[in-house]
């Protein structure tokens, strides 16, 4: 099980996702659009979210302390951090 954290318009929430193997950054962005549209992300339900809403977002991948995978989809912070 992987936890996908999505940040959009100042809101952020976790949701569990079943992923079969590695998914590309583009796939993460596509999945995020679908789950936000469907209301699957607590507090972030936008039925008419644009297809390219996460186009310029960054995908961060971390392994949690107990081995669980965490993926963060977040806005860029200018010039990095």
């Amino acid at each position, binding site marked *: 099980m992987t936890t996908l954290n999505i940040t959009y318009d*100042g809101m952020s929430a976790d949701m569990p996702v079943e992923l079969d193997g590695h998914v590309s950054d583009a796939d993460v962005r596509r999945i995020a659009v679908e789950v936000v549209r469907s209301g699957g992300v607590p507090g972030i339900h936008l039925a008419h979210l644009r297809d390219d809403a996460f186009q310029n977002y960054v995908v961060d991948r971390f392994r949690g302390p107990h081995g669980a995978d965490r993926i963060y989809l977040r806005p*860029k912070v200018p010039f990095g951090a």
Partner: protein
Amino acid sequence: MRIIFCGVGAIGSTAAVLCRNLEATLAFIDFDRVESKNLLAQAYVKPSVGKNKAEALKLQLLNLHGVKAESFGVRLTRDNVATLCGGADLLVDCFDNRESRQVLSEYARQAGKALVHGALSGDGTFGLVRWDERFVPDAEDQAGQATCEGGLHLPLIGLLGAALARIIQDFVKHGVRRDVMVNLNSVTPTMGT
């Protein structure tokens, strides 16, 4: 303990003021000057307009809070980074440009210095605090991308500055290095009046 804030604009000045409780010397590096518009989102006061930001913040912390502080009103470059940052126990990167962040990161890695980065998204709705061992610069959408200006983003800047100050405090007192993301829903109200 000597903590050097590199860049004391919105993030750096806010976080530095919230570090005034630490038993540490706070040092500030920034070549820029305080402008009237900065008063909306940065921890400066009207009499500081026109002064160098590093110098102005040093004077505020010394005179208003009695904190030991130092200032270096210069631009950080590859030529002076070792001289300016060599005495730091902790470096805090609050720059607003990628090049300066890279200079600082490369120096910290080469010199074995602790370095934590604080950064804010351009739309003012999201912030990151990340230690240098996990620092990877984000690609710019366009060169010279604007950072937050004006008071609209002040609440998020305050959240990010507070989170950064807490992380600095945890490092100073316990040696831990936490990363955080800061959003507008990261503070949960429990009671209203």
